[in-house]
């Protein structure tokens, strides 16, 4: 049968159908060949979370919360990460950054680490079992101590201690972790001063004392 003898409409349908099959096959192949394993967005969110594994968000760890966020959960449930983490997740997901949800806790000013008052420790190993980071050293009936470098300050060990010998201490500022502070933003009192208004320090001090 001569192909030209076909009705033009039939011919067109055949050609289009053929094309659809070809492209469909290509797309199908590409989908299999370039398949992405896992959910990359979860990894990205997980990377932004502070990995304290504290569970304050209501999930048993940071990764489950990352999965929760990927499934549409609120992004403001992470007090250890604070506003910075919320902002970066908001950036990643292209949403507005909400305020930290106070229901899950408040952002602490300074990072803390657990500290065991060692002479009070009875060596019950309860805190060791609670620590998600394996950051507590010790054995049954032996004194325990916290590896401060590995402690994320999740305070999960405080609750199980039967003798309340664990406290959260602020991380001490040392030469190694000290950093300059940002200058305080332009103060409102300075807004009416122009560059030519430079005062001598004495004058400023006098004004201060007068005030």
């Amino acid at each position, binding site marked *: 049968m001569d192909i030209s003898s076909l009705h033009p409409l039939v011919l067109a349908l055949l050609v289009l159908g053929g094309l659809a099959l070809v492209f469909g096959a290509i797309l199908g192949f590409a989908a299999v060949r370039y398949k992405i394993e896992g959910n990359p967005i979860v990894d990205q969110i997980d990377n932004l979370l502070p990995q304290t594994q504290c569970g304050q968000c209501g999930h048993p760890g940071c990764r489950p919360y990352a999965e929760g966020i990927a499934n549409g959960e609120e992004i403001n449930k992470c007090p250890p990460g604070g506003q910075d983490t919320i902002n970066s997740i908001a950036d990643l997901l292209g949403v507005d950054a909400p305020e930290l949800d106070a229901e899950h806790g408040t952002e602490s000013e300074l990072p803390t680490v657990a500290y065991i008052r060692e002479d009070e420790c009875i060596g019950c190993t309860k805190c060791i079992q609670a620590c998600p980071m394996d950051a507590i050293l010790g054995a049954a009936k032996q004194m325990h101590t916290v590896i401060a470098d590995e402690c994320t300050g999740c305070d999960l060990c405080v609750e199980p201690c039967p003798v309340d010998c664990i406290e959260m201490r602020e991380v001490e500022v040392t030469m190694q972790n000290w950093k300059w502070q940002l200058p305080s933003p332009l*103060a409102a009192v300075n807004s009416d001063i122009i560059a030519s208004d430079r005062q001598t320090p004495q004058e400023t001090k006098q004004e201060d004392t007068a005030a």
Partner: protein
Amino acid sequence: MSQLIYPLRGGVHPPENKQQSLQSPLRRLAIPRELVFPLAQHIGAPAKAVVEIGDRVLAGQMIAEPNGPFSAAIHASTSGTVSAIEARPIPHASGLWGDCIVVAADGKDESIDFEGCENPFGLDHEALIEKIRHAGIAGMGGAGFPSAVKLNPPPNSNIDTLIINGTECEPYITADDVLMQERSEDIIRGCTLLAHILNSPDRILIGVEDNKPKAIAALEQSLLKLAAEDLPGIDRVQVVSFPTKYPSGGEKQLIQILTGKEVPSGGLPAHIGIVVQNVGTTVAIWEAIKHGKPLIERITTVVGESLKEQGNAIVKLGSPSQFVLEQFGFQEKSCARLIAGGPMMGFSLPDSRAPIVKTSNCLLVPSHQEMPDPAPAQACIRCGHCAQACPAGLLPQQLYWYAQAKEHDRLLAHNLMDCIECGACSFVCPSSIPLVQYYRASKGEIRQAEIEKEKSDRSRQRFEFRQKRIERAEAEKEAKRLARKKAAEAAKAKAAANAGTAKTAPAADPVAAAMARVQAQQSDPAEQLAKLERAVNNARNRLNSAEEKWQQAEGDQKAKLESRFKQAQLRLQDAESKLHDFKQQSAGENPATSNPATTNPASAKPTAPLNIDSDDPIERAKAKAQQRLSMSPLEKAENNLSSLNDRLKKAQEKAGEADDDKRAAMEAAVEKLKQKKAALEKEIDELKAQAPLKENTATAESPIDPDSIEDPIERAKAKAMQRLNMSPAEKLQNSLQALQTRLAKAEEKAATADEDKRPAMQAAVEKLQEKIKTVEQEIAEFKAQQEPAKPAESTNESSGVPLDAASAAIEKAKAKAAAQAQMSDSEKHAAQIESLQQRIQKAQQRLDKAIEEGNDNVDAFRLGLEKLQAKLKELESE
């Protein structure tokens, strides 16, 4: 040959203010009473103290050793005693206190013998680096980078240029200027030594700003003078001067000025074949190697309007700033603040006790007029002066915005990390914005964020590892548990198999034990019968003797005896009635177990020679049986029951084979069937109860021998009859046997079943075992019920031939009892003991195996063994 100079991009020209400190000559300061040596005077790991409190130290003695490769040693700068190792104020921008070794000077200034080196150029690279390392030399220009590290560049980098930095571009500071004037020869010698250490680069450039003509002149003079000496590489040394501009003294800026090359972003000068050393460092290295003198003093500029005199001084490291300033007539009242370093890059010291350290090139104590407080910052007007001033070619204004917004990504994209914090942008800002403070803070934040990120990655790893470890431990536990369970099941199955194959063997488990007990019970009815008969005989004998006595007796004795005779009579009657009852019962049950042929009542004669009530009970029982046989509703019920039993059996089999999910349904079906069966049995019982009423009509009818009947239906009927006629005890025993076979099957299945089905099977087996127990209990109860029937037994020993079913059964039971009785007590005992011993042995084996495997059931096994042993003891004592 004059060196080509490349222009510096950006830069500013702040007031130089260098004249003040150049007015007076270099002087050597006295020794303070107390010297403080911070352990962290350099970039990198703090040194490790090697002295203890109370140790006497000499000048040049190492008091702290380098802690790792990226560290530097610290030496005492005078003789004295270590008075403390504690936190003291140190010169650091943070104002924090740091660990220090405090030496109380004795004023003698005794020093160790410095081990010099005649020909340092003869030493190899490693030896020289080690000497520098142990001399504790760190960059003296201000950064404090350990020199040994800097002079040991990565092996793949080909160093072609050595630059000696004599720029000293910061205002006020003249320490290097003075050094170049005073020690120019040592600088030239030092730089040739550095060139030697660096494998003789092509060029050795000493860069000096053109605002230090005296220093330049001194250097060139020394160069000419030393050219006569045979210093290797001195011909490659050049003194290069270039226009003064801040911050041309920056390492990267100096490289650019002298070579035109730019250090790549994030790279090191060594990456482009250049090493830069400060002139002060060069001299220190020369002294350390040539004369063996470690870094214990330095030239420091002490300047500012709050001083009576300003100038440079050779200061022993560790001297408190307060002490140094006092030597220059410090007036604290007029001092605006104490600055370590220059006005551009220095930082305020909150505590004047902070000591002079290796990097302290200047102490600046300006008056309020000299250095007023910074004007309040105002809004950025986007003038762009800062961008023009930036020597690193950055966009300070953009960085300012991003720093305020804490946009770290943007800051990094704008190369914040290439900022050298020179402060040129702040200097030119018309709005007095402390720009460099923003950059310093942002850099700190970014580093902090990086550290946190690293930590969080490590935390994630640790957390995930922990999760994995816990999972693995769980899996191991589970596997162990399964293995134990399997072993226990295998042992159980084995025991069950043993019990199944050898029923006579000692029961190794509850099933076998139950079976053994049941077997023992089976002989009981006969025994009971025998006992009852004996009781009747006794009663009759007593009666006879009582009658004899009564007849022989006279008078009042006769009345007495009469009452006794009557009593005996009553007792006999009582015993007889009991025997009668028991016989009646056994007549009902015996046909099933006894030979059917003998149960044929047709051959039985009603002339049984029983002394009392001889005909009635037996005949009645016979009749009853016959009657029951002929009863049509009863037959029906029986048929129903048998079919129900079949169905029940099948259903139970199915249930045993079914999957877990189907099993529930099956079991429900089985339960239903059982209920039906129970109902039917009840019905049958009722029918049975009605049966005695039809006694009279039934007597004539002949019972059917099931075996002799041809018709299968009839036979089935007969069998059903038989079953019906079974005594409750027999019924129970039958059901017990059925249960035991089921149990054996179930156990077999459980042993061969898959692991996942095993728990279900196990449960089924346990259920069966429970059922068996309840059945056993019922049997025991029944036995107990029969017990009271004993005394009523009347003897039928005299009756000779068994004439009907009941008597036949009785006869058989008697025979059995006799057989057992023939077996002597001791024999019985022996058999029991033997079986018990066997059981104990097995239990012991099982226990041993269990202990070996660490089985959970060890305790249970041990308990069982102990029980068995107790039993054995009891038996043996009997």
